[in-house]
């Protein structure tokens, strides 16, 4: 299982590098993103692989590690970005409320890709 786990880590890193090439990460992450995304990919693949061993069996664990890694490198930055976006909006909303209590505000738009 150790070799298989290392294989999943490698798959995840490769998927992360591909995600970097696809520029799926927020620019606000700066230069660190080149390391963070492969890390997320590796971790997702490892979790996906082990989950699959428990749920479906070892023979399909590598395909599952693959798609979970892709899912991870796409979803995690999106969630991180969406979370930060929502926090900023909320903060600015509260600030505008405290400075001009009579102003009407519309609902926050959801983060877009």
């Amino acid at each position, binding site marked *: 299982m150790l070799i298989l786990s290392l294989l999943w880590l490698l798959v995840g890193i490769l998927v992360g590098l591909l995600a970097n090439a*696809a520029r799926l990460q927020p*620019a606000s992450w700066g230069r660190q993103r080149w390391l963070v995304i492969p890390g997320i990919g590796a971790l997702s693949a490892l979790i996906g692989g082990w989950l699959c061993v428990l749920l*479906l*069996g070892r*023979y399909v*664990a*590598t*395909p599952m590690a*693959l798609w979970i890694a892709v899912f991870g490198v796409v979803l995690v930055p999106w969630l991180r970005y969406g979370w930060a976006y929502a926090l900023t909006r909320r903060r600015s909303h509260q600030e505008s409320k405290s400075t001009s209590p009579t102003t009407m505000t519309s609902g926050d738009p959801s983060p877009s*890709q």
Partner: protein
Amino acid sequence: MENEAQEETKEASSVLVAGNAAHAKPKRTRIRRLGNIVARVVLVLLFGVGFFLSMLPQGRATARALLILPTVLLASEPAPLTLVNDPVRYTQMAIPSRDGTTYLDIYAPTTPTPLIPGTRGGMLIVPGVGDYRGNAVPQLVNLDLALAHTGLVVINVTAPTLRKYNLSTQDSDGIVQAFQLLAHWPGVGADRVGILGISGAGPATCLAATDPRIRDQVAFIALLGSYFDATTFLRAFGLRALTVDGRTQPWHPQPTPLMVMANFIATALPHYDGTLLVHAFTPGGPPLTASDLAHFSPAGLAAYRLLKGDEPGQTDANIAALPPEVRKQLAELSPSTFIDKIHAPIYLLHDRNDTSIPFTESREFAAALARIHHPYDLAEFGIFEHVEIRSGLGLGQLLGDAPNLFRILNEVLLPGS
């Protein structure tokens, strides 16, 4: 993403500011954008392939087939595939059946049953005439292990009559009992078990699949190098020829099927005829002399001529001269007689150059299944020597037959996936 758009806008604006030196930059930006798109497409494809192979039953069957195919084609498991193998426990059992003791070789994964779908698939393999207990045939053990390593429980059945190089309808009882044992094996889904009948075990396998005890449970029947009608099979012996697509071509059978047929017919002949017939067709046995044949009964002589193949013009007359009991048993051991009683889909595999059982038998089987609209598939190969992968095959030959084998494997593995 929004950030990415901002980045690209920044890049674009810097291009405008930079003047002449920036002529190359729009081109570089276009290449970078193209690279982004290609990377995204690759990610989508990887996601799709990974999701299909792990989350959908068809995909899991494909994953299994992809893992098993190289092992079958190369007749040994490639080292990288051992990484994904489930550990397997091998045990032996013996169960009493109608015609004697049926021996079982069991290969079961030791890992817990996967939570999805909650049960394992199983495959019963009936390997044909001869004694297959233990590790007698490396290619069979290789197949057993390849299947078990992907999470299936596999049982090899050595039926009592087949073990003695003979044929009997009674062997189907041992197969039915072995099927029931596998269907109730811990973790195995009762409706996810199929049977692979190899060579002379095909008819007994089909007969077992008509048994009311298991008829509606059998997920599939796969037959490798088997026959459809025992009388046409015997006719091929007598003629020493096959009719393929309307053309007659010579066909010279191997000694083993002749010996099996001699053993089968001998039981219904007078003792003297039966004993000499069996001796004559045992590999290395003494040839019969004219004086031996002079003492034969007409039925014994007809059987000898049929198996010897020295009276091709008299083949039909010789078949008609066989004892009525033999002709009755030939019919009982022919899937053509009870084809309509089989409920499971049937997958037929046969090598075109098979010299033990004519491949035309599987073609006739397929034609009959098509006539009654029974689910089936037929794959013809050139890589088998009867039922084992030939040694010394080129990569081209192996790859040529790989798609056909993959298709059948995929179909057979679907119920267990």
